[in-house]
């Protein structure tokens, strides 16, 4: 028993914690939870908690469904929204096979493996996400079939006495209580749309934080009588919810992306990392944008980046190299703007990091930066400049992922296979639908 485990057990005792929730994530990114009585925690540390994995998406094959959930004591937190009496806490789990090996199908393990690869190359990876979401009056759409937002404000608007402002204050307090530092929060472009930026942390911790974040936001919304959604594009006419993420690689305490005097202070490593992301983006888009709805955001105009490009402070580029204050070389980083808020953060970060590392390993060359608004260029201009489009639909993305050799390497053959199967099925279901659009457009005239 290590000290961290002892700490957890002591806290459970001292704070009178009544329930310990073990959290893990399935392959499509849904949070799963098992509640334990405090007395069972010690056993779970030592031997893991057995459960039937066959019921969980992508976790196990039917004929070998026994799995173990092993709690990671460093992720122990008290859940503040459950109130002060009869406290509830949570820990993230690693999923193990019955013989104690990491399960190849555990998304957390997939990310850990990518991070281990980075570590083998001498890098630590830090990430910092900007998460957008909509606050709605309820989960049910309004009378016209469109969701009803809580307000009609816009970007950075201050709404006096607004639901959203109260909401953000409570949410940020709650996040800080579970140990998630918030950098920034504000009203976003769409009505009822908010953005909360988390402080940078190592990639695994960030992914854990994002899972917690989604839960906290939903809980707080419910407490306040509204509903929060991370759906990539709930409104046809308003911007979608992205999860722009900033990446940086450190070698020891040196920022490997920084090189004084180079163009945009970008080191060769950073350029290769970006080149890796751009080259492999079409292959991994099915992961970073995993739902049918995701492509409505990607191709819905606005700020969503839909073409392979990078630029310095260019808000239409897929990869952006942000400005930072002179001397603050520690903050050198690159921002990937393609991910949406509904991605499975473990897998999304694993593929992005893996693609970037591939670029470094193979020494990819990075093309010139884009300076103009890429969406405003003509198709011919874009082709001439080499700004190929991202996949245009989930179907297209799945097809491109199937061709990839890098994705199975990063995700592992089993997750790769399962993920594709799951997404093909989703596309199949979607294709069968007769949509309101069709009814509106055709019913009266045909």
């Amino acid at each position, binding site marked *: 028993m290590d000290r961290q485990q002892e700490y957890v057990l002591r806290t459970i005792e001292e704070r009178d914690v009544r329930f310990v929730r073990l959290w893990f994530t399935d392959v499509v990114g849904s949070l799963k939870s098992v509640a334990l009585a405090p007395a069972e925690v010690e056993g779970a540390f030592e031997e893991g908690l057995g459960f039937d994995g066959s019921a969980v998406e992508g976790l196990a094959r039917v004929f070998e469904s026994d799995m173990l959930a092993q709690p990671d004591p460093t992720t122990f937190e008290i859940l503040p929204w459950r109130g002060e009496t009869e406290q509830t806490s949570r820990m993230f789990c690693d999923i193990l096979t019955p013989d104690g090996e990491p399960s190849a199908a555990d998304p957390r393990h997939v990310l850990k493996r990518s991070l281990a690869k980075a570590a083998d190359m001498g890098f630590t990876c830090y990430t910092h996400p900007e998460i957008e979401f909509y606050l709605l009056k309820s989960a049910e759409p309004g009378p016209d079939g469109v969701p009803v937002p809580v307000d009609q404000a816009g970007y950075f608007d201050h709404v006096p006495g607004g639901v959203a402002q109260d909401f953000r204050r409570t949410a940020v307090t709650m996040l800080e209580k579970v140990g998630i530092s918030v950098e920034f929060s504000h009203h976003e472009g769409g009505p009822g749309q908010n953005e909360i930026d988390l402080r940078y942390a190592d990639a695994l911790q960030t992914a854990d934080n994002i899972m917690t974040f989604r839960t906290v936001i939903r809980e707080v919304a419910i407490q306040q009588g509204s509903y929060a959604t991370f759906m990539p594009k709930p409104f046809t006419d308003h911007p979608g919810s992205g999860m722009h993420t900033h990446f940086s690689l450190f070698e*020891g305490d040196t920022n490997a992306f920084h090189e004084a005097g180079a163009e945009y202070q970008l080191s060769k490593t950073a350029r290769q990392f970006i080149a890796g992301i751009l080259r492999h983006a079409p292959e991994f888009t099915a992961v970073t944008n995993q739902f049918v709805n995701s492509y409505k955001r990607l191709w819905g105009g606005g700020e969503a980046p839909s073409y392979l490009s990078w630029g310095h402070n260019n808000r239409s580029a897929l990869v952006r190299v942000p400005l930072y204050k002179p001397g603050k070389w520690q903050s050198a980083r690159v921002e990937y703007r393609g991910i949406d808020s509904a991605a499975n953060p473990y897998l999304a970060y694993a593929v992005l990091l893996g693609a970037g590392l591939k670029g470094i390993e193979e020494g990819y060359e990075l093309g010139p930066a884009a300076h103009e608004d890429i969406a405003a260029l003509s198709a011919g201009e874009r082709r001439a400049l080499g700004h190929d489009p991202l996949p245009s639909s989930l179907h297209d993305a799945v097809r491109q992922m199937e061709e990839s050799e890098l994705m199975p390497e990063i995700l592992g053959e089993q997750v790769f296979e399962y993920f594709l199967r799951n997404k093909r099925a989703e596309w199949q279901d979607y294709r069968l639908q007769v949509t309101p659009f069709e009814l509106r457009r055709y019913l009266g005239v045909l």
Partner: protein
Amino acid sequence: MSSITRTLIGNGFSDLEKSARFLAAGELEGLDRDALFAGLALANDPDMALQSLVWLIGAAPEVAQRLPRAGAAVDRRNDDDDGASPNEALFRLLGASQALAEFLVRNPGHLDVLDTPISAEPAAVTGAALRTSLLRAVGADPASDLPVAALTGTEAYTALRTQYRRHLTDLAIRDLCAASPLDVMPQVGAELADLAAAALDAALAVARAEAADTHGADAVARVRVGIVGMGKSGARELNYISDVDVMYLVDGGADEAEAITIGTALAAGISRAVNSPGREPALWEVDANLRPEGKDGPLVRTLDSYLAYYRRWAHSWEFQALLKARAMAGDLTLGAAFEESVAPLIWTSSERDGFVESVQAMRLRVTEHIPAAEAGRQLKLGKGGLRDVEFTVQLLQLVHAKADESLRPRATTAAITALMRAGYIGRTDAHALDESYRYLRVLEHRIQLRHLRRTHLMPVAEEELRSLACAVVGPLRLKRPGADALLEHWHRVKRRVRDLHENIFYRPILAQAAHLSADDVQLTPDAVQARLAALGYRDAVGATRHIQALIGGVSRRAALQRQLLPVLLDWLAQGVDPDAGLLGFRRVSEALGTSHWYLGMLRDHQAAAERLCHVLSSSRFITDLLEVSPEATAWLGNDKELVPLTFEAQWQEIQSKMSRHPDPADAIRLIRLIRRRETLRIAVANSSGLLDVDKVAAALSDADQAAILGALLVAEADVYGDSPPKTRVLVVAMGRQGGRENGYDSDADVLYVHRALPGADADEAQQQARAIVAKLSALLTQPLKPAIQAERVLVLDAALRPEGQQGPLVRSLEAYREYYARWSLPWETQALLRARPMAGADDLAADFMALVDAIRYPAGFGEADGREIRRIKARVESERLPRGADPARHVKLGRGGLSDVEWLVQLIQLQHAHEVPGLRSTSTIAALHAARDAGLVAFDDAEQLEDAWRLASRVRNANVIWTGRTSDTLPSSRADLEAVARWCGYEPGAASRFEEDYLGVTRRARAVFERVFYG
């Protein structure tokens, strides 16, 4: 002249001509010759001592003053109390180290070091004294908490290094003059570590002075630096020259970032002071690569940062490295805090996941990476080397020291003593191990001392070996030992170390298991269990029971097994399932009873016994067969016995058996026994790495063919009886048997053809043929009395015949001709691609194949036919896969599995074999190659398909060999996967990689298949 030669030889010189020349040198003029020879005789290498002396006098004439002048009457024997010559130190040093002689030549000011008092049992210089001396040399105050040097730069480096080498010389002299080099070895290693620590302290003082320029003296003074020794430095058993392994800890109070920056600068400064090129050469490399994240990790960390890493990220082996961690230099309180914090992590590492694997990795480190050229000369690596001793000791510490704190000394010699005192190693073994270790270390010390070069190789030159032989014996030698004696002794020690490992580890387990009290070691049952578990035995209680059974009693076998079992247990532990291996060994041993060749094999054929252990612990299939035919164990010792018998040889044997046993029941029994025997032979040869997957397939196919041919003759004879035969039957192989691609679990797919003999009635002939075929099948599958145990029954499967299950089992040649002319479905045509006559009349075979060739290699294979084949394949894919099976893991019907590759090849054969003769083969791979060469399949595609097909075939075989059962799926339990991976040629511990490889290879093959087959 001849008298000089005699004197030289008498005094141990080797290079007479050169030494005679040096003796005539001007520098030696006026010295007393007898005294000089008496002195040189003390040197391990008189030639080298003489040359060095001449150089030394040339550089520092005052050295000559120390030596007796010619004519001066000196009573050389009695002028010293203990009888030593006054210049003993000088001559012993010059005869052992050219590098230190050069140091004196460079620095004659330090000649007074030759006045070091020498003794048979020298006293150690304390670490504190060394630290004081080296700090003073760079002008730092030893009493200060944070000593800062007065000197910096080259001046400081030279002062530090010169003082270090002075102490090194002093230590070398005491070491060389000690009566027993083996006795003082641990003390010398400890003092060398202390000296290195003192040098690091002085270097840190210099680095502080230098860093003050850039970071400011106050800032530098705020940062505390602890240096933790690792490896041999940590264990205080350092070599004369080696890298000094360290880790740096910093503590800067509030400002951690500053502490890291300055700490890193100080660490770099230390390295510079010790190891940068300079007038006084560099000392050694300060190696911090054992730190977290290795050379990519930050050079310095805070204590918390180390602990965070060890708790969260560290690999199992890193805890083993921490076994030696010791606060060595710099801030010792900081280092002590580190030691204290990591101790619990080290001693609980045996409970960690992956401990057994990391032990196995440790074991591999003993024998890894020895360049062939060095194999015979290595002192450190290899079986019986220094690392082998260290592995044994550390493993015992890791297993037992959790419960027993007295077992935690870092130094190897001290750990051996502790393990002996606590009763974990027998007294005799402990002494042997300790002495062997000291002996090897002294060899290493003396070799390194000569040129102060890092080497672990025995010298080659005769004269160096001779001087080494003297050096190891020490000053009390009566005569000079020769090089042969040295090598012989060394080999003896290596052999002893090799045996000691198994003895020390397993002998006490045996003693406990059998309640023997022969030795003084008494392990508790818990300790036995811990040991067995550390080596991979899961059921320690069961293992103990088997051991009891194997060594109990007074039989010769038990006595022999008592001797051998330690080694056997170790070999079994290297397999996938040691428990099953041990059980299997017990069964085989009991079955073989007292047959003398078995005992002889165990005793005299190491390789055979090792193979046996390997097979038993990784194959249920072979174990089962060996148990019922234990005499086959004899093959293990003889590769000639493991060459599969050719078909002809088997056929000859069967014929002779049949002629002697006309009774069908007897005959078929012998035929089936031969097949069982050959299957075992193939499996054992396969397991010994003598057969690849293709040869295994061909050999299995031959064995089946011989059995079927034999059975056919028996069946015919039985059915014909005394009446004249009416027809002749031909058995045609189909499917995998047709392509000679059998696995251990393959049924034989067949077609039966007959042709009535001239004059016979067609109906009667048909009836007789049916009787023969039924008899044939029954003969091969029917249970016999007494039963043939562990036989994998050969099932004849005629499902591929025209009309499948609905069609008649056997048809006449004419009926086939008629049938094919009228009907012939595409799948029947496809099945015929693999038809190969196997048993029966040759003329009938020729006629049948001529008929078949026209059908299976059609001139016009239409688009519609191709579409039909594709459609059937698609339907098979969705229907034939067993319910619940994962298509990705099914080797036969799964994606990219055997059937995908075979269907693709067969489609190409149907389409093109008519014009491409190379495609007319029953072998999948041969046809695939032909298709590739004809440009019908792209080169890369063919390669992907071949890889997948071979891997799937291997997995299928491995499944049978490992479990003894047929299975067409890639296993999912880790243990099964590990076993199958090893049978597929992966190294231990590669189960996950193997699984990924399999899924990847088949995924790619499937992509090729979909593109090429479905189009």
